[in-house]
């Protein structure tokens, strides 16, 4: 393990992660001592429109993967339309590799709640929901406790701090469906249906939850809001790059010395992050990695100096996504890795769109055949063709997400596929695993 150099350490920007160091920050009194709810008091003295402008000025972009400008999204909510408005927080963290929201909600739940109150005030919503992944039980436990504390303190409920503003906040546990991380599927799930994506338009800003104007934001996005309210848009923009402002929690996992959460300004490179993480694991050389979860096209060792912001990763042919960087080495097989992801997408496909439902079913089987040493050259064409037919042909991003590891490994690691087909690599799956595969 190597020590990071001083100039690399300076790239750390502990903002959202800072309170995690205080073991009791999930309690109201400790949170309040650490600047908690100061932003709410400040925000309630400002007109909601001015708050939306502040968020626009900060350049904050969604932390859930798509990077949509948050202030713009809030501004899309029609005001004075006589309809109820809703804020829905997407806490259905499940993108493979992503593990930034769970610790945030577990160790600093009030920051999310404070952000939710401010955001609701800005878009004039009197009900907000946190849709949390069902499996995230400890985070949900802490959140529910925090909501009760906030209610008792008058930060939630009627006439919050004498402002005339009311807000009910409900923590709603999901039930184990990855697809519900997609915003329209999440809304369907929250309405009590199967979580299946909706056709857009209309977008949630016009017809979201209960067909009313709704903002759906990621946990990291909403938890950023109190800091912007306190520190201002210019301070926020002092971190990150011109078009991708602010700090971001990078989740590093895999073949590195110290996996973990590293909060840095957007635009840091993988090389720098690996240095912060103490280097690669001894005996491992970087081979491929996901920039933002498995649904973003894989990158390779040659992309190690790509700026990890929305523009930089896009220029490299991938997507910043959730900045969940799973790092694989020369000892990991990209074909095997892709197969396992596809098993996941196959399992999680909601079944609404035929390309995704059927395509994943067949791609999984093709991979099993290749990995058991029975693959043919035609299988590679089948995979490419199937992936091409899924990509862009489904309602939501799950289909695209499933196609991308296939397309990117075929592009970068064709030789690894050929090694299975031509018998240079020993089969990874036994015939037992192949029942029904052909």
């Amino acid at each position, binding site marked *: 393990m190597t020590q990071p150099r001083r100039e690399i350490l300076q790239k*750390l920007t502990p903002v959202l992660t800072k309170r995690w160091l205080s073991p009791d920050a999930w309690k109201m009194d400790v949170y309040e001592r650490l600047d908690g709810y100061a932003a709410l008091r400040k925000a309630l003295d400002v007109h909601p429109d001015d708050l939306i402008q502040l968020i626009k000025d900060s350049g904050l972009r969604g932390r859930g993967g798509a990077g949509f400008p948050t202030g713009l999204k809030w501004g899309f909510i029609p005001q004075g339309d006589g309809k109820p408005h809703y804020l829905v927080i997407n806490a259905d963290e499940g993108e*493979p590799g992503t593990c930034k929201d769970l610790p945030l909600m577990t160790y600093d739940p009030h920051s999310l709640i404070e952000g939710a109150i401010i955001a609701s005030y800005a878009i004039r919503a009197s009900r907000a929901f946190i849709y949390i992944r069902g499996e995230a039980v400890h985070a949900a436990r802490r959140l529910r406790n925090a909501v009760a504390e906030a209610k008792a303190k008058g930060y939630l409920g009627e006439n919050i701090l*004498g402002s005339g503003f009311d807000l009910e906040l409900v923590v709603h546990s999901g039930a184990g469906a990855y697809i519900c991380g997609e915003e329209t599927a999440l809304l369907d799930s929250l309405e009590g249906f199967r979580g299946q994506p909706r056709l857009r338009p209309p977008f949630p800003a016009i017809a979201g939850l209960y067909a009313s104007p709704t903002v759906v934001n990621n946990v990291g996005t909403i938890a950023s809001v109190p800091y912007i309210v306190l520190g201002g848009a210019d301070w926020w923009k002092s971190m990150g790059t011109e078009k991708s402002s602010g700090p971001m929690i990078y989740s590093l996992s895999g073949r590195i010395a110290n996996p973990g959460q590293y909060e840095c300004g957007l635009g840091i490179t993988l090389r720098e992050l690996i240095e912060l993480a103490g280097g690669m694991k001894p005996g491992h050389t970087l081979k491929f990695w996901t920039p933002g979860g498995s649904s973003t096209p894989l990158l390779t060792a040659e992309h190690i100096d790509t700026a990890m912001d929305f523009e930089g990763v896009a220029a490299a042919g991938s997507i910043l996504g959730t900045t969940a960087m799973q790092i694989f080495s020369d000892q990991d097989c990209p074909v095997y890795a892709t197969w396992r992801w596809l098993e996941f997408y196959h399992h999680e496909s909601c079944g609404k769109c035929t390309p995704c439902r059927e395509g994943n079913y067949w791609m999984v089987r093709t991979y099993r055949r290749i990995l058991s040493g029975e693959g043919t050259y035609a299988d590679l064409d089948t995979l490419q063709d199937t992936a091409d037919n899924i990509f862009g042909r489904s309602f939501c991003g799950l289909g695209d997400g499933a196609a991308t590891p296939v397309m990117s490994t075929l592009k970068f690691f064709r030789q690894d596929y050929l090694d299975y087909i031509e018998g240079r690599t020993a089969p990874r799956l036994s015939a037992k695993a192949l029942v029904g595969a052909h």
Partner: protein
Amino acid sequence: MTNTEVEFSPAAAPLAQRLLPAALEIIARYPADRSRSALLPLLHLVQTEEGHVSPNGVAFCAEVLGINKAQVGAVATFYTMYKRRPTGEYLVSVCTNTLCNVLGGQEVYDQLSEHLGVGHDETTGDGRITLEHAECLAACDYAPVVTVNYDFAIDEATPDTAIGLVEKLRAGERPTPSRGARICSLKEMQTQLAGFADPREGAVADGLAGAPTLRGVTLAQEHGVAVPDFNLDTPITKTKPSPREENKGKVATVVDKVKSAVSSVTPGHAGKTTRAGDVKDPQTRTAEQRNPDASTPDKTGTADEKKPVPSNPAEAAGTSSNQPAGDGKPAGDTARTEEAK
């Protein structure tokens, strides 16, 4: 539909007898005409009694919401966490998604499966353990991970640590999990999934953050790295008065009166309404903590009033004509501007 007068069918009646009050409480969380939103928590609630969603559970949810059983069944079969068959006391999940998989998760799962003699979604004969392989559990920095009833139980799991865990569970012990709260039964966990607070004293405080979670922020702390120029009082550009300011003169409920008395009273008003001196407002505490040598700022003063002085005259005029509301107002008028129902 969602009233207490519902006549339950013989299939649903036994569950209704035990679960109806909780079910109504769940339904009340959602807008009045949107009770179907309660379906997911209701299905979790059903599992508190049955450990899985049986046809009776489906009937109960359907009848309490006034929808049909097919609609409930369609939802119940869509989500992984609603179990179709009876489950054990503990649900042991091993992540076998790609990253955990290559770091050993698959081996952990395979050996556990062999050791217990059960496969995916199957329960041991003694009724203690239901085993499953899970998809990404959002703890990749601790890979491979094993959860018990969804709480993180083992980080960086090996076949040995996983088998050790299930053996303890089967022997009736409840070992301390790595980062989750103390272990309960799967049925008890369903109560929390239905949205109720954990009834166990101290459970919410369990589970410290592990080293990987804190790695970046600890590095920053050790090397004195912080984001410079963070000033809590950075002004927000105001182009119009806030509703609170427009509401000036109208007032707050009693609760808020007490609160504002504590945090932001005008000087002359303080003595009367401030509660006993044990309640410090957050700004005072922050100030004390940040600058322990300085004398505590006058509490009766200026918590809300340390706003920066506007630099341009127009803004200053605007500010002075729009004083913040919330203090010292006569009680009685609860008119709210945000109430748009």
